[in-house]
């Protein structure tokens, strides 16, 4: 802007807002703001969880609990014939179950299914705060464990050893007995993955910090996020389900195409 009054002012201005890179800078600033706002917004849940112990939040959670959860879990979360006691399950458990839509449960069945989330982040945090206030239990993990910036190789190895027998090596899910199943772990947030490991929802065993250290959990999340963010180098992955999907594909589409071509080749010309 100071160049305006210099003798070279009449030449087309290449500085200030007319600079060739100005629009690029503008976009960068815009992105920075949007990103910043997004970060601020998404970290607001973390803020909400940090002041989870405030009496006001707990009171709000208790109200929500009485209205939405007490039918099965009891008015003071002591449990009933319809649902287990929630005393001591911790904030992590509530955040996982409510945050993935599994609770409130749609219907009794082999296991609670994922569905659209019923509560806002704030309400979930309030519920978690209330349940956490009943007795000590696993807390919502700190953000630095969820950054997916650990060692993917260690994570992959741990995942194969501890998780793949139910969830499949690529996290595509798998069957359990009597209609239960290990769900696919694609597009599950790092926080929910971590919480699942420490709380053992549904039929999943608990992997506590003695079993898999917090850093190892961070590595596992790193691996899962790597798989999620990097599409299969070989092309479409056919659900990462293994040889059954491949066999089905070759019979229906491979051999199907070939048979169609044999028909075409041997067709009599008119």
């Amino acid at each position: 802007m100071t160049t305006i009054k210099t003798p070279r002012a009449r030449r087309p201005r290449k500085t200030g807002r007319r600079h060739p890179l100005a629009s690029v800078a503008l976009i960068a600033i815009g992105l920075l703001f949007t990103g910043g706002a997004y970060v601020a917004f998404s970290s607001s849940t973390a803020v909400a969880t940090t002041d989870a112990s405030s009496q006001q939040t707990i009171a709000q959670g208790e109200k929500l609990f009485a209205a939405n959860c007490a039918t099965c879990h009891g008015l003071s979360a002591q449990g009933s014939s319809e649902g287990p006691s929630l005393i001591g399950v911790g904030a992590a458990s509530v955040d996982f179950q409510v945050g993935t839509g599994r609770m409130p449960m749609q219907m009794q069945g082999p296991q609670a299914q994922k569905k659209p989330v019923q509560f806002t982040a704030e309400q979930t945090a309030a519920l978690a705060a209330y349940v956490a206030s009943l007795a000590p239990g696993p807390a919502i993990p700190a953000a630095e464990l969820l950054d997916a910036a650990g060692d993917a190789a260690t994570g992959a190895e741990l995942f194969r050893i501890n998780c793949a027998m139910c969830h499949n090596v690529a996290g595509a899910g798998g069957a359990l007995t009597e209609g239960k199943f290990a769900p696919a772990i694609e597009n599950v947030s790092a926080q929910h993955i971590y919480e699942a490991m420490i709380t053992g929802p549904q039929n999943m065993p608990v992997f506590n910090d003695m079993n898999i250290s917090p850093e190892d959990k961070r590595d596992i999340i790193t691996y899962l996020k790597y798989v999620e963010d990097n599409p299969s180098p070989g092309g479409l992955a056919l659900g990462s389900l293994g040889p059954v999907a491949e066999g089905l594909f070759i019979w229906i589409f491979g051999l199907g195409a070939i048979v169609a071509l044999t028909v075409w080749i041997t067709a009599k010309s008119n």
Partner: protein
Amino acid sequence: MTTITTRESAEDQGVGVKKTGGFTASAANYIDERTSISGAVKELGRKIFPDHWSFLLGEVALYSFVIILLSGSFLTFFFQASMAEVVYDGSYAPLKGIPMSAAMSSTMDISFDIRGGLLMRQVHHWAALLFVAAIGLHMLRIYFTGAFRKPRELNWVIGFILFILAMAEGFTGYSLPDDLLSGNGLRIIDGLIKGIPVVGTWVSFLLFGGEFPGTDIVGRLYSLHILLLPAIIVALIAMHLLFVVVHKHTQYPAAGHTNQNVVGYPVLPVYAAKAGGFFFIVFGVVMLIASLFTINPIWNYGPYDPSPVSAGTQPDWYIGFADGAMRLIPTGWEFVWLNHTYSLNILVVLTVVGLFIVTVMIYPFIEGWITGDKREHHVLDRPRNAPTRTAIGAAGVTFYASLWAAASSDIMATHFHLTMEGVIHTLQATTLLGPFLAFFIAKRVCLALQKKDREIVLHGYESGRIVRLPGGEFVEVHQPVDEYERWKLVSYSDFKPLMLRPNAQGKIGPAEKVRAGLSRWFFEDRITPVTQVELNQAHGDHPAEITDK
């Protein structure tokens, strides 16, 4: 021979003869004078092949095999069949620094660090799946059209051995990368072998060079995979094709097709061009699939380690029926006798699957014995015209399909929201009862179709046109079937159950009784083809047809 020699020498003497025909002719002549290939070209070039899409399925299998050989040769340049432990240091981040066998590490390098390596791996694997699938479909075509009958029984056996060898090739190849999936597959084989009483453990230790997994198995399977099995397969394919040439090709029943002729195109030029072009079409399809779809992502599975087993661990599709058979065995099928465990869960599977395979392999001889048919057959059966055979085939397919489906019981359970137990119990039922149901339904459908054919031959098609006769009677005009179509509908051989005949000693042995019983079972329900007499009568009976003309 002597006359030929003199003629050739006579030609040789004609030095002064002016050459005509340019380069092609002289090149052809050059080759022919040194190889006498014109005899073969004349013989093979005039060979007639009937044109039908289902006759190309065997070709698809052959072409897939050629693709496998080409892509496999590429892979051998880079694959190291060694189980020596190395630390992976390639491009794929989630395996960096992980100890693995040289086999796994080199397969990872093929997939990530060698130009075109992943594409070739995928071409090789997809072509392998297509190879076995094409063989399967080809076999079904042969079976249901009765192409295995005399004189082609031995070629059926050769083809079936090729099918088994193709599965062996597939399984050894599946085990080579030494990733988690292939190691799990080998562990199952190890368990199967160890389940055999007395010799099991010894055989397992012999195969793996000690306790599973050892450090030998990949090298051994590699020798089988790239040397022994392909050599046998190539030799058997040569025999298989030689037999096709010797026997001449079968053809579907149609006007002018008889046991004495072959109606179709000569190999040169049309058929050779079509078949040659078709190779590139098959290659193109495999390439397209391989470039768009992942197969066997070993980077997901990671190196083999005996402790982890991934959910959704299955063999490639062609081993699925054996895997499924084991999944269908109820729990606790084992007993202890003299301080040794006898694993019925494994022995029953080995016996049943083994019996099934042997039965399919020798089926042409079984059917030949039951029917007592010693004639040569070059015209195929339409499946409906051999109802019992078609029904047996349907039962076999149902049995195989149930076992096969069982290999994906877990995938079915998760994807259709079923319980694993429900899927297994349903498939147990379809495995045991399904074949009987399929036999009954297929046979009835065949007989019904035969009746329909008979009706069409005798009375033509219903035209929907109602005509009132002068006497007041209403009749529907039937459109008579044309002669070409009629040929197809009436030309099949009629069989009757075998008569019990005493042998030279004047006795009827138990084997003969069994044979006669089976023959009765095979032929008791049958629709005889329409005879000329019946045809003439039928036409006489239908004034409406005549008025229509």
